[in-house]
């Protein structure tokens, strides 16, 4: 597949995530849109790693492992995202316990 298609698919998913963050007030939905943006970046990294591998193969190196780094970066992004979700959901649960809502507009004055 041409790399262009993957670039535009990832851009579309990333921008949908941004629109979600900008238009919703529910903290959990905003969090889910951030996950969507992380996944768009992951998809682009995998596509570029396969492109890099293809370039190395076309250069004549049949046993190349070029492009492995990109997929390992995706693995580490997933690790960090899992840690981020556990802490973020704990913060949202604490916020719900204190103000009985998950509306981010109640958090606009940095007190209480």
């Amino acid at each position, binding site marked *: *597949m*041409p*790399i262009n298609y*993957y*670039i*535009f*698919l990832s*851009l*579309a*998913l990333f*921008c*949908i995530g*941004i*629109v*979600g963050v*900008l*238009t*919703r*007030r*529910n903290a*959990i*939905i905003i969090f*889910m849109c951030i*996950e*969507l943006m992380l*996944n768009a970046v*992951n*998809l682009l990294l*995998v*596509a*570029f*790693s*396969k*492109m890099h*591998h*293809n*370039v190395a193969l076309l250069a004549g190196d049949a046993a190349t*492992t*070029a*492009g*492995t780094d990109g*997929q*390992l970066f995706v*693995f*580490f992004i*997933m*690790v960090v*995202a*899992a*840690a*981020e979700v556990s*802490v973020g*959901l*704990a*913060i949202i*649960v*604490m916020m*719900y316990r204190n103000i009985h809502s*998950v*509306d981010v507009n109640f958090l606009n004055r940095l007190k209480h």
Partner: protein
Amino acid sequence: MGITQILFWFLSIAAIFSALMVISSKNPVHSVLWLIVTFFSISGHYIVLNAQFLAIVNVIVYAGAIMVLFLFVIMLMNLNKESEPQKHKWLRIAGAVAGGCLLLVFVAALKDTDIKHQQALVNTGNIGLIKNLGKELFTTYVVPFEISSILFLSAMVGAVVIGKKE
């Protein structure tokens, strides 16, 4: 048009449609379910790209663990359509226009790049198999791997400390 192209277009349309449903559903539980559909279609893209390890990890970690966590939190809070906070109509339109403008700028900047004649290798290439990735992970990237275990431990402690009642 081969089977790969058909799969690519089907998975792309599924991913974008379900991502749009995530941000437009009124009910948070429906948003979570659509997000799971998005993650499955992204996993399908990984399989098309022959990145099998990442496809399995994506299903297990995202669609399995993280989304179950989201669903549990939403059910714990008893959120539904009636209690869903809504932004003002003009703010929502402004957000959609801003995101659309960003997409327009990105597409305009990237449509004439030098790499547009490159191909991403589909169906073949064995760099995405677990043998190759595991060898690289436990030789070159062994220090970041161990550091990420410390990150997990601190995230676990942090979640317990934050979530604990006073």
